[in-house]
């Protein structure tokens, strides 16, 4: 009489729901059709369960499987890599739904779900995501519980409750492991997220580019200064060097990009700033530092143009330690090839600008005077700093300098560099960020995407590369106070992001809230996500005095013993045998009182028989004794509703109290 195993209805319901919660945070990274496949498979499964549809035949299943493979290949251009792997996992457990499943298959589906949960953390370890992940964790575990609850016909929340209880009990033990488990170095290299949109400053600049970034209030990076925080106008976060101009846009040449082997900077001395940068993923390799920067963090190299760069793109949040020597000159000697590259301009185009440069240079007393003349020109003439510049024509430098005269950092930097190169002074564009706001709670500097900035470096003999920011001449507010103040009159600050909290910085309570959230994030990153190596050792030292094996074992045993005894108490208190409920307690106490007064209840004598016997002898007790005994008999032998039980128990108490 072997009946084929069927998945309990309760389990199926939890399984489908848990898969939804598992997929939800991944949804934005998945092709839409993967979600559609999942929803269809789920619907199909429900229909099969209700007996309306039947399972698809194998040719359909095989072709669906192939279609998924082909679809993933087409969507990502490859089956390898992290994103395609996650999409494969999710299509896999979708298609598993429309097979006849045995109990073993349900285990497979649930274990796959745990695996998908882990992949989510590779993409994001945000505190919000982590808190959310408690939900899928609980629902997946609930479906595992429901798999072993054949007692229920319908949907039941007991599965969820049991799962939550188990997770809650496991939680303190997990924390303990988290504290002491040594973070081993990676065993081998693994695929990193790659199919992601690159964010942040790009490595080309044509007037108009940085404008779109200025509408984004996403965080670019946080900086935690160990030395005093420099004033905003000195916080030029250097990221990219653009030294090649084709008449319309600036790009990076291959020259001067290679790694150099400088000796590390001594971390003390005047003008040395020490700080830690916590950079959000950009999926690009460059890092943002104050010039001239050195880093001791592994995987980071210095390039010949004095930038820091990562060997691999920054695909996860990256924390790196930097020392910057602001006084150190860059390239006191400029070699020939570099000089050539940094003075090169297209032969054709922007003739008016070329003429202007020649004319002004001829009038000036030297290179520095020429630079100052140009800056003065920007500040004295009617140039406007705006986030809404007009479109420029073929000769963009000419059009900007002489006609529109409206633009933001990209326009000013690009035309300034052009005017330098026009008279054979080496100049290049630097892309990066400027300023950033200080969070008073944590003391860290927050640099947002709207802080993106472009400026110029000019090479002068004897001084090397010098930073010149033409935007400062036009809009000193941008440099001193940031973008918001610079465009306050225009009202264009974050006008494209009406929901961004940063836009409402002037509302005090909202800003305080924003700062608190940021502080929470900062501590989360610094103390939880980056809890490893030296930090971990320090915490353990503070806790244990010194980190030795016996002390660690003692810690594990003592915490483990406390947690386990609490769990054991909770689990077994409702399984012990002592059946004496409140009713028995009250009744037997009354019997003991009667016994002392000389009225003994015989072995095997029922409560009512006993009551009648005593009542015959002691009529003054008759009423109370009889009703107490009846109440006890009801409680002991009759099936009662909880409300009735309470009422009768109350009666028993009052009546039994009268027998003295």
């Amino acid at each position, binding site marked *: *009489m072997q009946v084929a195993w069927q998945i309990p209805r309760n389990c199926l319901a939890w399984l489908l729901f848990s898969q939804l919660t598992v997929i939800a945070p991944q949804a934005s990274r998945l092709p839409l059709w993967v979600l559609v496949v999942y929803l269809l498979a789920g619907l199909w499964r429900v229909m099969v369960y209700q007996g309306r549809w039947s399972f698809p035949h194998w040719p359909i299943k095989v072709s669906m499987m192939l279609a998924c493979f082909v679809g993933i290949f087409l969507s990502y251009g490859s089956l390898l890599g992290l994103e395609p792997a996650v999409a494969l996992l999710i299509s896999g457990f979708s298609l598993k739904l429309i097979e006849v499943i045995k109990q*073993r298959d349900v*285990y497979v589906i649930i*274990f796959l779900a*745990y*695996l998908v949960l*882990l992949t989510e*953390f*590779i993409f994001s*370890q945000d505190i919000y995501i*982590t808190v959310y*992940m408690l939900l899928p*964790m609980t629902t997946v*575990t609930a479906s*595992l*519980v429901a*798999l*072993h*609850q*054949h*007692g229920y016909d319908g949907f039941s929340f*007991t599965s969820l409750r*049991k*799962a939550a209880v*188990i*997770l809650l*009990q*496991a*939680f303190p*033990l*997990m924390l303990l*492991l*988290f504290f002491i*488990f040594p*973070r*081993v*170095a*990676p*065993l*081998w*290299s*693994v695929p990193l997220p790659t199919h992601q949109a690159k964010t942040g400053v790009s490595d080309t600049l044509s007037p108009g580019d940085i404008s779109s970034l200025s509408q984004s209030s996403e965080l670019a990076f946080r900086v935690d200064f160990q030395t005093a925080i420099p004033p905003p106008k000195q916080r030029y976060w250097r990221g990219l060097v653009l030294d090649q101009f084709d008449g319309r846009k600036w790009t990076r040449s291959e020259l001067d990009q290679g790694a150099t082997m400088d000796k590390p900077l001594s971390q003390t001395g005047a003008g040395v700033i020490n700080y830690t940068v916590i950079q959000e993923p950009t999926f690009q390799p460059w890092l943002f530092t104050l010039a001239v920067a050195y880093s001791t963090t592994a995987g980071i190299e210095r390039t010949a143009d004095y930038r820091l760069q990562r060997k691999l793109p920054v695909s*996860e949040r990256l924390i790196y330690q930097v020392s910057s020597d602001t006084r150190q000159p860059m390239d006191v000697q400029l070699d020939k090839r570099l000089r050539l590259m940094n003075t090169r301009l297209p032969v054709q185009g922007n003739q008016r600008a070329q003429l202007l440069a020649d004319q002004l240079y001829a009038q000036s007393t030297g290179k520095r005077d020429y630079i100052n003349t140009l800056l003065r020109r920007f500040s004295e003439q009617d140039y406007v700093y705006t986030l809404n510049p007009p479109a420029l024509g073929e000769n963009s430098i000419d059009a900007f300098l002489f006609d529109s005269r409206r633009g933001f950092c990209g326009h000013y930097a690009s035309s300034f560099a052009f005017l330098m190169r026009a008279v054979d002074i080496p100049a290049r564009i630097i892309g990066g960020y400027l300023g950033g706001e200080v969070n008073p709670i944590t003391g860290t500097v927050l640099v947002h995407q709207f802080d993106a900035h472009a400026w110029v470096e000019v090479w002068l003999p004897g001084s090397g590369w010098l930073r010149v920011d033409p935007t400062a001449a036009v809009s000193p507010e941008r440099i001193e106070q940031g973008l918001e103040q610079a465009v306050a009159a225009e009202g264009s600050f974050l006008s494209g992001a009406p929901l961004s909290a940063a836009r409402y910085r002037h509302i005090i309570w909202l800003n305080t809230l924003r700062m608190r959230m940021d502080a929470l994030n900062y501590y989360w990153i610094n103390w*939880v*996500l*980056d*809890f*490893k190596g030296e930090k971990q050792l320090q915490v353990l030292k503070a806790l244990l005095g010194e980190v030795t094996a016996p002390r660690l074992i003692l810690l594990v045993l003592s915490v483990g013993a406390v947690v*386990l005894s609490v*769990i*054991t108490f909770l*689990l*077994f*208190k*409702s*399984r*012990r*045998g*002592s*059946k004496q409920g409140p009713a028995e307690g009250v009744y037997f106490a009354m019997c003991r009182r009667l016994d002392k007064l000389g009225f003994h209840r015989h072995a095997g004598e029922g409560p009512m028989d006993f009551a009648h016997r005593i009542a015959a002898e002691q009529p003054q007790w008759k009423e109370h004794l009889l009703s107490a005994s009846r109440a006890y008999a009801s409680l002991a032998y009759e099936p009662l509703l909880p409300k009735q039980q309470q009422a009768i128990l109350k009666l028993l108490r009052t009546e039994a109290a009268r027998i003295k």
Partner: protein
Amino acid sequence: MFEWLITLFKSNYQRWLSRRIPAAKLVTLNQRRIFIFPSRAGFSFLALLLLLLIAAINYQNNMAFALVFLLACVFFVSVLHTYANLSGLTIQALQAKPVFAGDSIAIELRLSRKGVAHYYDIKLAWKHSDQRIVSLLANDEQRISLYLPTSRRGLLRPGRLTIETVYPLGLLRAWSSLALDIEALVYPRPLAVDMKALTAVDGEEGEAMLADGSDDFYGFRDYQAGDSLKNIYWKGYAKGHDLQLKQFSSFRQKQLWLDWQTFNGNIETRLSYLCYWALRLESQQKEYGLRLPDKEIAPAKGMRHQAAVLRSLALYQQGAA
């Protein structure tokens, strides 16, 4: 090659088990009696954990570490939960009604709890019986019958009852192997046979004696196990009556002896014949006695008498009568 070792181990294990969990009518499960070990799914889960741990290490991802640790602790905590799902359960062997050899014997068990905690998916089975999955939710106790196939007559001791559970997560299996003190009587399988020479005690009065295959129709009687199908009154059955047998009469006597010597064949066959006739005479409300080589039961009738007769047949030469 190592069979002797396995045998040695098995016999030692059985001896150890019988000391640790002695036979009893009523057993309450506690830590002395419950064993626990990862299930097959549990081992797969541990393999998954290893995989996740390697991923966490390679990605240097602290939240992935947290996830792995949480799952590992879930596994650990579920040891207690699985164990608790057996702890405090009481199993009582209620009864096993005798059956004829070849039929399945139903052994009735009572599963009850002491506290109010719910118990889920408790699987009960003997080695050769079917299995039942029981939950104690709103109900404090549950009675179940497990069916055990029988092949030969005698006293059946069903061996150790396995009670197990993998609730709540299926990653661990808690079980106990209980020797419930219960015996079931298996009667010989009845075999229909003609019997011309039933010995009468007092041959004064003659009566029609029933014998299959004789010519004169005598009446109907209810079908009993072992009857041949050819005399069944199919028409009546088709009309909705119980299965009945047409009876044909020859001659019969008042008090009858079922005698070992009357029948031919080996011991089991003779016992089967005797069993058939005992059932048949009882159904006719006749008085009959039993005469075995080592035992005699005086003629009588009634359920108790029949039970005594069948019991003697079941236990003949089994040493444990």
